[in-house]
């Protein structure tokens, strides 16, 4: 699997989970970093933007939904994949309504996560392309 250029930010309060996941994804050549809370994620995004955020729903402090909302407010192009240990459909549906790309249930299959992340990035690229195209059209006029 070749190196994907896009950047992924993992957000989860479970440090052990994060560390292993980061190691495994890096081993698969992903450009991945991790933070432990919603607040940290927003702070990181402020000066170090990423393409895809993988966000745990249940976290102390800002929970997944709040963080998602804030991320989308700041940069709607960033794609967010919800990660939940919660089988509750409502939370997932709520996340999707706010603009999450998809959701995965813990324990996750790492390949699934990577595919989802790639899809999310692809979507982002398409969106970006569209916007660039529209901007180009506008500037040509």
């Amino acid at each position, binding site marked *: 699997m070749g190196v994907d250029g896009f950047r992924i930010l993992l957000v989860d309060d*479970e440090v052990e*989970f994060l560390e*292993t996941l980061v*190691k*495994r994804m890096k*081993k698969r050549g992903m450009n991945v970093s991790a933070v432990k809370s919603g607040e940290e994620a927003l702070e990181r995004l402020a000066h170090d933007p990423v393409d895809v955020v993988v966000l745990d729903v249940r976290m102390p402090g800002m929970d997944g939904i709040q963080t998602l909302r804030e991320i989308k407010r700041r940069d709607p192009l960033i794609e967010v994949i919800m990660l939940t*240990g919660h089988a509750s*459909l409502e939370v997932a549906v709520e996340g999707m309504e706010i603009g999450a790309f998809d959701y995965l249930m813990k*324990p996750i299959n*790492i390949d699934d996560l990577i595919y989802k992340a790639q899809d999310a990035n692809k979507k982002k690229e398409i969106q970006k392309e569209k916007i660039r195209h529209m901007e180009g059209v506008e500037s040509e006029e």
Partner: protein
Amino acid sequence: MDKSKETKTTDYPAFFRKRIFIIIAVSITPMILVSGIILYQFNRSYHEKVHAHLAELVLKHKQNIDGFLVEKLGNIRVLAKTFSFEELSDESFLRDRLEMLQRGYGPVFVDLGVINSQGLQVAYAGPFKLGKALYSTAGWFETAIKNEYVISDVFLGLRGLPHFIVTVRDNWKGESWIIRATIDFVAFNNLVGNIRVGETGFAFIMNREGELQTKPLFDVMPDKGPYLEFMKTKLKEKDDVQIVERKDAFGNKNIYVAAFLKGGDWLLVYQQRASDAFSDFRRALRVAFAIIILGGLAITSMAYLLSTRMAYRVARMDKERQMMDEQIVETGKLASVGELAAGIAHEINNPVAIMVEEAGWIEDLLEEEDFKEGKNLDEFERALKQIRTQGKRCKDITYKLLSFARKTDSRIQEVHLNDMLEELVAISAQRARYSNVTINTNFQSNLPLLEVSQSELQQVFLNLINNALDAMEKTGGKLEMSSKVEGDYVVVGVADNGPGIAKANLSRIFDPFFTTKQVGKGTGLGLSICYGIIKKMGGEIEVRSTVDVGTTFYVRIPLAKEKEKEEVVATT
């Protein structure tokens, strides 16, 4: 579900006995009191009536007999006054007189005799040969010569037959003489003997010495009984009648009614068995007792019946209440277990995720060249695979727990229950064939539509069908699915003829995590989830099972919601 049998029961027999006692006491006491008072009053007035009747009877006869005696005496007195001693001393004349008397009054007068002051019978007319008989030493003569007229007691006399005589004294030439008439004893006896009442009532006459003057119908012992007491009694009025009741020598209670005759010389006694005299009363008493006993029996059996029914009802109500308590406890337990399960699911999911992740990391690392040559590589891979498998199992469990704890999700929609069940049967048909199970359906047509979550209901029945198929997996058997409307519920039955559920397990089958399946084969959540879903719908789920016979689950789904909705639609 069988717990109610184990819980201690109220003392129903004692309750039952108390009930019976109260009902009987309350019903029978007034009955006995009223009957007793009425019978007592009736007894008294009936006695008075009988006494009055007998007193009148005796009085009438007393007057009758007294009248008879006075009349006979009068006849002889007329004879004495009308004819002289001389005339009457002529036996043929005397015979004429006797014939006249007998013609006029019947054969009451047996004979006539004229006796001079020395006691010699100077003339006699009659059937006996008593002419010239000397009576100077006879007891009656002494009395007769001293008194103007005498009616004697009964005696045998010269003729050797019981009789009594009427004598009248007169004077002729300074000498007393007596005319004597014998009264026919049989005729007189009949006067008294004809007094008959009932079966044992009879009358007789006795004199002051207690000698019988008439022949009583039944044996009488004059020296026993109240006769002598009657004699001693001084009566104010000459027409007074004495009445006593007492036992005779044979132990029978008798009524004695007595009246004096012949100015107190004789006593007319009437006696009758009390049982005979009061036979009407006794009969009434017997009827009354029969009614009381029958009534008592009726009351007792009614009391028994009512109390049995009441005790049964109370017992059933208690049992129902106990069952309700149990169910409430169970639902409460399920709710809290549900919350707990959700918590556990969340908390366990994360560490399991980490473990699976770590295992994945090791797998990743094993792919590096350094390890490819390791002699235990296969073992490592097997172990990691196992970790992944078990992690997945944990995941399944937590997912089920979460769905169990889930508050609401599926939409409420109109469900054709029979169609849904048919569908489920079709889905299960393949599996049933493998297990050699035949599925029979018995659905009531035209079931009303249900307003429930279709997917939840599917989950419930699929679970029940799968359980049944699991139970019959080895043996094969029959699965009976049925549906019918019962009151406000649709009842769906899922019956198998598998090995059944042991009694000890029956009360626990709805408990979360309870399973009799092998480790890894079942989570023990299926039925608790079913229970939760059905309860949420306002329905009930119930199980009946007999070991070696089979198990039947009944699911009751309420129709009420639909009705409510219709009402709402109708009112808006």
